């Protein structure tokens, strides 16, 4: 319930502000008033509210009121957003009340795009309100005059806090908050967050190191969202993740709504759905595409068109999960399973920002299992049960970056910095040894072999303080700041030079000239790579090679998986499922059985001369991938001759030449021992993790646009470094950081071990004479997924065998082959 502006005490909302609200026909939300009261009392606050509740204004209002009453020069409020675009948009939105109330307040933005001249001016004469990003805050703090700039700071607003906590960017920001509080002890902190599973954890994160706890303010929620599941006229597919069967229905929904946001799970899916919609688009509705691989100018164009209300629909990936309030979206369509409840709720919240009306959303499952998942997600939203990742300790690579930044700002004492760093929530439990090792790494690599003593970045002076050796170090730091390590990207351009966007280098590496793929909504033919540019031409191929982007495929969350299992078990609930799905489950109950909520159902059956084992684990794709690797290793040792495996979010299937009989032994918990360690050390996942850690910590320099062209650029294979370091100093702090990352990134390994413990002694083994209905979807995935964990030599041999087969049929090659007589000694 809102309060009329005039009824609010003037010391909270001065007349000028009350009049402005009235002029616009608004009444302040109760949470906006509560924020004013908390600010007046000097308290830090966490505001949790759904999108559209005037959350950002609630965050700024106290600063505007303070500055209107007492115009101060110097930086007053720092606003930090995870998105550059959001910082810029907020700035635009804020200019309006400032202008309309005639306030004498300067608000500016500072991001990586801000020109050097403007940055210099901001240093000389800072605005009172500065909108920025975590990376820019870190850069400003590394400046020698940072203490002067921030001394006047009264308030720090962190927007979309839920998106930062628990990530490395969040770690960086937490360290910067600790530093800001040391420079400006009186500054209050304000966190703005969407609805999350564990607001206490957020409040704890925000309030770490402050004298008094953070006050929690909960925004008014609107009515419950209206969510429906779209069951298409057409047949519901057994497998697949693209949701293309439902395009006619999605198109109809777009036609009937004002503006629709169509969310998908991967960039490849975005391309396909976008193309399919345009094939049906006889009405020429303005439908656009938005994902992270498109060029920034193209994305900005789509966002601007959306803001101006010129679009009827945008097909988007998580690139639009956060961000600008459009206020015009009145329908959200989620194509493919939601995978997590919190994420779904945030996506749904992007529709209808007026609080008096419910958000409207349609879920489009792309296969039968996903129908169950969509149903489970709707129930979870109804019950208010959200999922989220638990907090984790701060990353040591981020700490290394921060320490270098601190050193660039001025000399420091190790003891003082250790104390300060522990004021940041993720580092509260940081051990002195870890801190000292990271400091040693920053100073000169921190290796046990002390040959680098001559080559320091930091040195300890006679007064006991650490100093940087020269300005070169600060330059290095500035080029390397930030925690986002992008996969190497190449620009995609049409022959005549028009730039379409960027694409992952690894995808291009698999292309042959003449191959076609879908990108930026069109079918393109790969011509060649020139420097860092991929040259393409327009093609009209029918069967393009679709970009197989690695990103965006999130595994099913534990909470949602539990609900799916319960749903399978509750037969009375089957009534509400679409007929085809109900029929499928009934058939399963008759031919085998439906997996129980506890325990584990394992089916085995012969098929085409091979023996299949299908386990209904429901622990998400990543956990299943690891399980598949461990199971096949174990089956190999048992002489079962496994041939391969394939994993979905729900199920894993393994096939072998001999049948598995002792299922309990196969799934014994001890599989997580040596096999797992051996595999982890070799896995490409750990190598990728090491690369990210090495870049963030500053061991390997980032690639910067344009640098590659010089040809003098030295690129390291981080794999070579990883191998050498692992052999010669396995306990080096960067390897410890890598393992810690892998362990938290692999909450999936944890899920696996929890599952193995849970199902011990409760495995039901059904020996079937043929495939069961529930196992059909996973078997249909075979061949679409690459098999993991195969040894390199085996694969290369296979390629060589293929080649020999080819060669023996071509007489020409035979005498060339005679040059090489294989394998002796």
């Amino acid at each position: 319930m809102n309060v009329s502006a005039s009824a609010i005490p003037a010391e909270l909302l001065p007349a000028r502000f009350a009049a402005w609200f009235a002029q616009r026909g608004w009444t302040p939300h109760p949470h906006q008033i509560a924020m004013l009261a908390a600010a007046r009392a000097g308290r830090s606050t966490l505001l949790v509210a759904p999108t559209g509740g005037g959350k950002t204004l609630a965050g700024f209002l106290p600063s505007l009121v303070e500055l209107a009453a007492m115009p101060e020069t110097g930086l007053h409020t720092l606003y930090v957003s995870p998105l550059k675009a959001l910082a810029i948009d907020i700035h635009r939105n804020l200019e309006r009340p400032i202008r309309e109330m005639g306030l004498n307040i300067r608000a500016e933005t500072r991001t990586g795009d801000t020109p050097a001249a403007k940055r210099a001016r901001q240093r000389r004469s800072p605005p009172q309100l500065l909108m920025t990003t975590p990376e820019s805050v870190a850069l400003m703090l590394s400046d020698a005059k940072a203490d002067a700039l921030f001394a006047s700071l009264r308030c720090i607003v962190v927007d979309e806090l839920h998106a930062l906590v628990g990530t490395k960017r969040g770690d960086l920001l937490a360290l910067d908050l600790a530093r800001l509080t040391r420079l400006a002890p009186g500054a209050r902190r304000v966190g703005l967050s969407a609805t999350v599973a564990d607001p206490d954890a957020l409040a704890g994160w925000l309030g770490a190191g402050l004298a008094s706890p953070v006050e929690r303010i909960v925004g008014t929620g609107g009515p419950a969202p209206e969510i429906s599941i779209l069951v298409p006229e057409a047949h519901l597919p057994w497998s697949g993740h693209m949701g293309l069967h439902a395009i006619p229905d999605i198109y109809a929904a777009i036609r009937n709504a004002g503006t629709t946001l169509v969310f998908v799970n991967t960039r490849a899916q975005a391309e396909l759905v976008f193309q399919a919609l345009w094939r049906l688009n006889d009405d020429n509705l303005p439908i656009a595409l938005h994902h992270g691989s498109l060029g920034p100018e193209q994305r900005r164009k789509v966002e601007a068109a959306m803001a101006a209300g010129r679009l009827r629909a945008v097909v988007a990936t998580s690139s639009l999960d956060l961000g600008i309030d459009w206020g015009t979206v009145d329908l959200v369509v989620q194509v493919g399973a939601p995978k997590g409840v919190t994420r779904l709720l945030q996506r749904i919240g992007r529709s209808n920002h007026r609080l008096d009306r419910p958000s409207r959303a349609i879920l489009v499952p792309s296969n039968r299992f996903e129908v169950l998942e969509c149903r489970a997600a709707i129930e979870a939203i109804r019950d208010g049960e959200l999922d989220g990742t638990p907090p984790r300790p701060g990353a040591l690579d981020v700490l290394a970056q921060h320490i270098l930044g601190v050193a660039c700002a001025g000399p420091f004492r190790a003891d003082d910095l250790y104390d300060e760093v522990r004021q940041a929530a993720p580092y509260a439990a940081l051990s002195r040894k870890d801190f000292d090792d990271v400091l040693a790494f920053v100073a000169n690599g921190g290796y046990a072999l002390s040959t680098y003593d001559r080559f320091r970045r930091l040195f300890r002076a006679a007064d006991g303080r650490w100093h940087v050796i020269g300005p070169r170090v600060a330059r290095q730091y500035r080029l390397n700041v930030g925690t986002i390590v992008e996969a190497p990207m190449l620009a995609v351009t049409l022959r005549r030079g028009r730039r379409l966007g960027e694409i992952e280098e690894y995808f291009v590496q698999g292309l042959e000239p003449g191959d076609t793929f879908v990108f930026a909504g069109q079918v393109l033919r790969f011509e060649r790579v020139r420097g860092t540019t991929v040259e393409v031409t327009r093609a009209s191929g029918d069967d393009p090679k679709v970009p197989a982007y690695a990103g965006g495929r999130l595994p099913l969350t534990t909470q949602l998986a539990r609900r799916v299992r319960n749903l399978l078990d509750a037969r009375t609930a089957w009534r509400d499922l679409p007929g085809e799905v109900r029929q499928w489950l009934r058939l399963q109950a008759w031919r085998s059985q439906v997996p129980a909520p506890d325990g584990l159902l394992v089916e085995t059956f012969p098929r085409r001369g091979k023996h299949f084992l299908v386990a209904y684990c429901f622990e998400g794709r990543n956990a299943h991938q690891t399980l598949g690797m461990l199971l096949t290793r174990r089956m190999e040792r048992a002489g079962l001759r496994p041939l391969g495996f394939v994993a979905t979010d729900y199920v894993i299937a393994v096939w072998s030449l001999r049948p598995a009989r002792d299922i309990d032994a196969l799934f014994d918990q001890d599989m997580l021992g040596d096999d797992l360690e051996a595999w982890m050390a070799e896995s490409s996942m750990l190598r990728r993790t090491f690369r990210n850690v090495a870049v963030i910590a500053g061991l390997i320099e980032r690639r910067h646009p344009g640098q590659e062209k010089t040809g003098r650029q030295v690129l390291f294979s981080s794999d070579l470094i990883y191998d050498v370091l692992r052999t010669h100093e396995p306990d080096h702090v960067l390897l410890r950081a890598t393992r810690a990352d892998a362990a938290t990134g692999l909450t999936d390994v944890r899920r696996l071990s929890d599952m193995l413990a849970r199902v011990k002694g409760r495995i039901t083994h059904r020996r079937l004479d043929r495939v069961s209905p529930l196992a059909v979807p996973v078997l249909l995935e075979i061949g679409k997924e690459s098999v993991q964990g195969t040894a390199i030599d085996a694969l290369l041999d296979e390629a060589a065998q293929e080649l020999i087969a080819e060669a023996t049929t071509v007489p020409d090659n035979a005498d060339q082959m005679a040059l090489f007589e294989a394998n002796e000694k």
Partner: protein
Amino acid sequence: MSTRITLNDEALLADPTGALFWPAERLLIVADLHLEKGSSFARRGQFLPPYDTRETLDRLARVIQRYRPTRIVCLGDSFHDAEAGSRLDRGDLERLRRMVGAHGWTWITGNHDPAPPAGIGGAVAPELRLGRLVLRHQPAAMEYQAGEICGHFHPKAAIAVRGQRISGACFVTDGRRMVMPAFGAFAGGLDALDPAIGALFGRGGYRVLMLGRERLHLFPRDRLLGFGAPRRASA
């Protein structure tokens, strides 16, 4: 497991570590050790692990153990830069001296190391002719050189198997001439499809022997995938 190959009618063994053994001469050839590359970067404040020399010497000791050569030829760029010798760890330096002292050792000079550090031992030569082969760091001018073995390029190759991309360092040869992979632990690579390598071979094309974990794998040129953005070897 090594692979027997014939180069300009001489029988050689290619080893999966990237070394080449000539049984008739009991001669072992390794290219581009780039010792002390790590410390070369440390000078500029980039602290790569200082163990690359140790790792490279470990590998060299293992191949020496396997083939028991009487002579060893390092095909140039053995040290990453002219001051590399002064940065060698004392233990590594002693070990290298012992290795050199125990064999007939030749340092072929490269573009990174015109001469090896003083006091390390071994002979220094711009090239070495033996039987029907000639060993150099960089290939001789443009004319076709039969029997030439060189380093310098650090060739690497990539192929696709079952949708997976596998890449690794490789030997490149057409049976008459050969480019060896870099042996050094931190040596990067240049795409075997790069024109700089292609120009060394005649019209008949060339093949690569890719280094696997335990053996080499043979692929013709047209089987290779390129590496996205062509890069210079990190020389």
